């Protein structure tokens, strides 16, 4: 049975204006991602990988092309609609973890839940995810008291607390040693396999990319081997 792809991108272009110079970050990207897929994206620095995520995640609008995420046309969205998409449909995991430093791990997750507008009643699926992540006992600590691996697992917990359709992980192991990288990648694979979480992951590391079902290569704002 063929379901409509959860991400459908055709002819996507993104131009950043820096002073008087136009920077072409994306020069015509075509990509389809199915629901439940774990896709790896690799490519040299500056090839436009993060920009692609920022557009799919509604942080910035596309310059041209069609981008449909969970059936909605991102290019036609207002700022407010893109904000709603970030609340409900997509979520990010960053290389630098990006936890709020003043809040405990637990409060970081609670805040994301609050911003997502979900009620605060116990969420059995999420409790299971916390166990899966192995950070349930670290919830009362501030990010500065956690190891990099723990911080990234808290960031993943925060990203999935509102059950987003798509998880966008931009070099999630870029700041981690190999042991912690392994743990985070295992968690992502578990989330994908057990909960059916759709995941897009940017990485430099071929071993990390191998965790995905499929890998696409980007260079100079284009995808080399269209998937």
């Amino acid at each position: 049975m063929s379901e409509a792809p959860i991400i459908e991108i055709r002819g996507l272009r993104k131009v950043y204006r820096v002073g008087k110079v136009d920077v072409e970050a994306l020069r015509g990207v075509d990509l389809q991602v199915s629901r439940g897929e774990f896709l790896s994206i690799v490519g040299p620095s500056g090839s436009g990988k993060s920009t692609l995520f920022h557009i799919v995640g509604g942080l910035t609008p596309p310059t041209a092309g069609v981008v449909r995420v969970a059936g909605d046309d991102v290019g036609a969205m207002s700022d407010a609609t893109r904000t709603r998409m970030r609340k409900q449909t997509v979520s990010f995991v960053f290389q630098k973890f990006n936890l709020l430093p003043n809040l405990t791990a637990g409060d970081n997750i609670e805040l994301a839940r609050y911003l997502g507008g979900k009620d605060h009643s116990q969420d059995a699926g999420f409790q299971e995810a916390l166990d899966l992540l192995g950070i349930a006992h670290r919830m009362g600590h501030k990010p500065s008291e956690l190891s990099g691996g723990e911080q990234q697992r808290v960031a993943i917990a925060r990203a999935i607390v509102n059950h987003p359709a798509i998880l966008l992980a931009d070099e999630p192991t870029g700041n981690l040693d190999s042991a912690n990288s392994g743990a985070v990648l295992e968690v992502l694979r578990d989330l994908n396999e057990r909960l059916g979480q759709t995941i897009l992951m940017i990485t430099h590391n071929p071993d990390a990319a191998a965790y995905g079902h499929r890998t696409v290569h980007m260079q100079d704002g284009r995808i080399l081997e269209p998937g």
Partner: protein
Amino acid sequence: MTFKLILENMRYRPLRSLLSALLIAIPVTLILTLVGMSQGMLAESARRTRGIGADIMVRPPNAAFMGFSGAPTPEKMVSALAQEPHIAVATGVIVQGLGGLENVQGVDLEQFDKMSGGFEYIQGGPFKGPDDILVEESYARQHKLRLGSPVQVLGHSWRVAGIFASGKLTRIVLPLDVVQKLTANIGHVSIIYLKVDNPANVGSDIDALSKKFEGFRFLSMTEYLSMVSADSVPFLHPFINVIVGIGVVIGFAVVCLSMYMAVLQRTREIGILKSLGASKSYVLGLIVAEALAMGLAGTVGGILLSFVGRWLIMTLVPASLTQAIVPEWWPRTAAIVLGASLLGALYPGLRAARQDPIEALAYE
């Protein structure tokens, strides 16, 4: 959750939050102290005037009722008025300013005691010798005076003969003739007080007196006391307005700078919030709420400081200033300061709300 975030943000930079609140507290204290002092001193002056026990106050032609220095009334008027029907006691008082808020009053102690029921002496008693002076208890406390202590007033050295309880006439009292001589006002008084036989008829008594002593002005004490309000003190209102204006400017500037700094420091956090789906209005709300919390802390701090100020005045200079605590001004100053904080938060808040999340996340 939002509340927790604001609280943790403020706790994360305790010095910034505390300093801002303290700076905001200063104009709050200024306003409350100024208003409190003017009201306190008016209440104090009204209490002393009431303590005289008079029903009617007499001023000569062309003299104002406020500010009694000078002695324009012939003393003969006192005995003339004492002869009038329904007048139980008449007594003349001479008021001599000593610079600032202090004055010395010369009284005819016998008549004054009849009218007021007499000073309540805590130590000593009425004048005995030619150099004797009476002082109020608060004045004695401030200047560390005891019975027999020397006091310099009107270029003359006096000896404290009596220390009386506060709340009657004034703080420093000399015999009427002595002050008349020293101020070259022999035969004159500043003001005449009358006590009537039946206070219920003060109105008709005043009518009768006004008819007979044309030009002289007779005012019932009730009416006089109702005039003793903030409105009767020249420049007080404009002065308070200036202080309020300064408060608004300080509150605005402090909050604006402090929150602007906070927004710059939290560029990355704001980017994170936006990536989590926080809307522009939510981000603006965070900044405004933090500013208002600071404004509120400043208001509470300012109110507490006004108590500290009052305690200092009562301890160090009990006889010079009286500061009332003016709770009816608390909500007003709170509104002024919170309004200023809100304005001050607007620019930093809007800047934060408009911040591009991608640039914010790239920010180191």
